[in-house]
């Protein structure tokens, strides 16, 4: 006998690419919410100072970077108070870096789920990002306070912020998927992430404005996806003097899309074996 695939709702076979993958992903959106909800709940329940922690980290980082780059190195800040300039960079950077760490660790952290239940595995690294988003929102509150203190009034550009947040999300999830999938197979990839995050902070225009980068290096500089994203944030929050360098911005966007597309591709081509090796 040969199996008539038309008779069945689902046919499982080696190497079969699932036709319904994206539909399945949509069907499992509730699991996505619940996993995100669990992470948030656990995070802010376990550590009493969970919320405070979401503030303390960026604020301390802001102080250090302001002192180092603003006071000691005396880099130009455009027309803005240096702390504001730094914080506008820190906000997306921390969102990016913690999203990247969370999502690249997420499969290992949920290995019991992977080996015991079926669901589209993409749900896991994607939902892991949501906690970072909450941290991001909390830290944004601090930025609002800071801006009031310096009496800066945001203009219409603020409405473009969700767009940039989405871009940051995509920027994090691309390499996040790469690292998550690699982590399952090669456990030493977990050492790559802290390294990336630590150096990335100094390579990205967090503690300084991207305008200090020499012209001859500019295009190369924007190969770092976060360079474009941070520029975008500064432009959206601070307004005109913080301009977006358009060619650079486009390079960053291309990098983001490239990483995300290849990330999904790599993740999908390895995810079928996750349960066997995790």
């Amino acid at each position, binding site marked *: 006998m040969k199996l008539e695939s038309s008779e*069945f709702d689902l046919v499982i076979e*080696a190497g079969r690419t699932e036709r319904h993958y994206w539909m399945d992903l949509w069907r499992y959106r509730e699991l996505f919410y619940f996993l995100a909800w669990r992470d948030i709940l656990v995070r802010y329940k376990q550590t009493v100072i969970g919320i405070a922690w979401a503030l303390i980290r960026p604020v301390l980082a802001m102080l250090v970077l302001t002192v180092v780059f603003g006071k000691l190195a005396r880099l130009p800040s455009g027309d803005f108070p240096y702390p504001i300039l730094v914080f506008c960079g820190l906000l997306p950077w921390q969102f990016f870096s913690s999203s990247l760490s969370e999502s690249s660790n997420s499969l290992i952290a949920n290995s019991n789920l992977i080996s015991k239940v079926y669901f589209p595995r993409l749900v896991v690294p994607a939902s892991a990002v949501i906690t970072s988003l909450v941290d991001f929102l909390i830290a944004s509150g601090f930025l609002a306070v800071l801006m009031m203190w310096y009496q800066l009034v945001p203009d219409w550009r603020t409405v473009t912020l969700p767009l940039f947040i989405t871009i940051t999300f995509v920027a994090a999830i691309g390499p996040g998927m790469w690292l998550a999938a690699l982590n399952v197979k090669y456990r030493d990839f977990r050492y790559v992430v802290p390294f990336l995050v630590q150096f990335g902070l100094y390579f990205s225009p967090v503690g300084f404005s991207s305008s200090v980068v020499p012209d001859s290096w500019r295009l190369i500089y924007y190969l770092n996806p976060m360079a474009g994203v941070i520029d975008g944030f500064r432009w959206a929050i601070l307004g005109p003097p913080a301009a977006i360098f358009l060619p650079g911005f486009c390079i960053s966007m291309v990098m983001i899309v490239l990483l995300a597309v290849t990330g999904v591709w790599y993740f999908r081509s390895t995810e079928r074996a996750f349960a066997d090796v995790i």
Partner: protein
Amino acid sequence: MSTEVVILAENLGKRYFLTHRRGGRSQYTALRDVIADGVRNFFSAWLFSKDRSRWTDKEEFWALREVFLEVKKGEVIGIIGRNGAGKSTLLKILSRITEPTTGCVGLKGRVASLLEVGTGFHPELTGRENIFLNGAILGMTQAEIRKKFDEIVAFAEIEKFLDTPVKHYSSGMYMRLAFAVAAHLEPEILVIDEVLAVGDAAFQKKCLGKMGDVAKEGRTVLFVSHNMAAVTQLCRNAIHLQNGRVVDSGPAANVVNRYLASGQSDAATVDLRDFPTRTGSGTVRFEWGEMRGSEGEARRDFSIGEDVIVAFRFQAGAGFHERQVRLAIQLRTSDGISLCNMADMDSDFAIKDFCGAETISVRLPDVRLYPDTYYLSLWVGSITNIDVYDWVRDCLSFEIVGGGQLTTRTLPRSAGLLFWTPTWTRLPAASSPSTARSFQVPTL
């Protein structure tokens, strides 16, 4: 039961690679090892042209092989077999957790799998939160969970602790809650692995009852268990897996009986009420038997020189009034050689005031047998040895495994049966046979 086929598996196979890592550092691959192996492979390929597998100690292993399966709608199928037979692997393929290496499966309807109780429970979250989380993980929608919420809580009997983090639950409560969520799934096909082996007897009974209800509702169920009574009770049909292959299938009671009779069963505890291979009048019957270690824990693997305990219970039927019964146990090797027949009176033990039921423990001290599987038969009869009440053959088995305190050398099975450690002495060089003086030439 309809004739609609909802699960059809053809030639299913699953291959795993067992990596034997030299140095045995970790079970996981590290990139640096891969690179190192790659470099070595490259050079060995280049230098020796073939034999590339030399450096990567990969062993192929088929956890499942040539499995054909056809399940009709509403059928409840039991899957039995020894540890490592591939039962969980089969369920994992059916529930899409892992991919088959060969063959294909067609499924009709939503499949929910329960491979472990409480998957995804988070200790920091409360019972209420965990119900929602676990429900979502098992594939329920939020609306479904809300609808079933009260039922789940009632089934688990944890109303008072709903808002306590589950890390403060007793393990029994935890299990009850976890099973309660799973029991309220409503998929068309339910796949369950060995989850009833938890909780106390009362809860196990409740779970079995719930399972029975699920089956009656016309859901298709695949049910893996080491509890033969449960399989016979719940399932109409069963399949027996051995080393990844289906070796037997058919009506559950028959498959279970053949499985138990084949000595393949590896449960330390055996329900003897419906055990097939027995003779005797049946006026007194064995109820259960169990292999135990010296601490009284149920187990069936022993190392050489350990004490092996056989515990069993027997009960008289109505109308049995004898006050005395005689007991015996018999031990044989896996080749069928009878080793010994131990009667109670040999050890000065006798039951003289029997009144209906008795639980007995027999300690076999310092068992020095070669590594093998050994089988025990239980016998109960009249004090005169004339009437045999019940004689259950080869119902219990235990494994003597190599190693342990007495010996670390490998003992090949063919080399012996008894592991004796006699006293060896070296005599003075001048010693001659002690019988030398009276040495006689045998007269023919």
